[in-house]
């Protein structure tokens, strides 16, 4: 196989990890919404934790993105 084509396929495969990240971020915000809906007073406390969880999950997406960028542009 042509090395360029293999690189493209590899970069595409690297971002399959985004599947899990999408589920994870959706889960975090779904839980955040239901938590705030059940107890609106807890919004201040819950929001910070949700943002922390969002950033930690999103970092996984960026690891995958980074790998695919490194494959594509190196």
């Amino acid at each position, binding site marked *: 196989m042509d090395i360029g084509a293999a690189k493209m396929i590899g970069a595409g495969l690297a971002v399959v990890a985004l599947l899990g990240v999408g589920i994870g971020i959706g889960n975090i915000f779904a839980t955040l919404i239901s938590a705030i809906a059940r107890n609106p007073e807890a919004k201040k406390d819950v929001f910070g934790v949700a943002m*922390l969880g*969002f*950033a930690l999950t*999103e970092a996984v997406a*960026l690891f995958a*993105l*980074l790998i695919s*960028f490194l494959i594509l542009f190196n």
Partner: protein
Amino acid sequence: MHSPLHQFEIEKIFNFSIAGVDLPFTNSALYMLLSVLAVALLVFSSGRSIEKPGVIQVFAEKIFGFIQSLVEENIGQTGQKYIPLVFSLFTFILFGNLFGMIPYAYTFTSQIILTFALALVVFVLITLIGFIKHGFHFFSYFLPPGAPIFMAPLLIVIEIISFLSRPISLSIRLFANMMAGHTMLKVFSMFTISLGVFGFSTIIATSVLIGFEFMIAFLQAYVFSVLTCLYLRDVIELH
């Protein structure tokens, strides 16, 4: 056209050597210096006047109050003495990320060696604090309380690996976020030319992404300091 990774190249601004050792002043060093100066400006402008606080003073005191509540929530009252550490880590990373958002500026937090050095400082510090506070009792950290004793060999190995991987995960998170974010912006801007007439749609997308990137810049500095606080609490309280 440059490749999207061109922005991370370190360039020498002027050469400088002491006794045969090369110590060039690079663009990375320049932005680190700028960031340190900005932090110093915040520190020296706070607590100046009570009647008529300036803009910078209010900003500095807001950040300080934010860090103070963060440390108190996560470590507790005993954590007061770690406020300067968390404050300087937070502001240094925040200004590094924000200065990187200026067009043609260099983002020094996208260098893994810098983020790894920062994370290593935190790691060495928490290990030292653990040993100073608890002596050899600190090793009980690696066995969670209430765990069945026959699980001990497995749990201890897992806990030691998770403890040792902290500086790595802490540094890679910040580095990957900044690097992937900035590369993504450049890749999207490249589409503007290749799409021709429809390029305006990517201009809108890039503008939205820049706003997102500002949020990430703040969020990553916040995550780094929150995790520092959590690690500190772990070794101070030992379970």
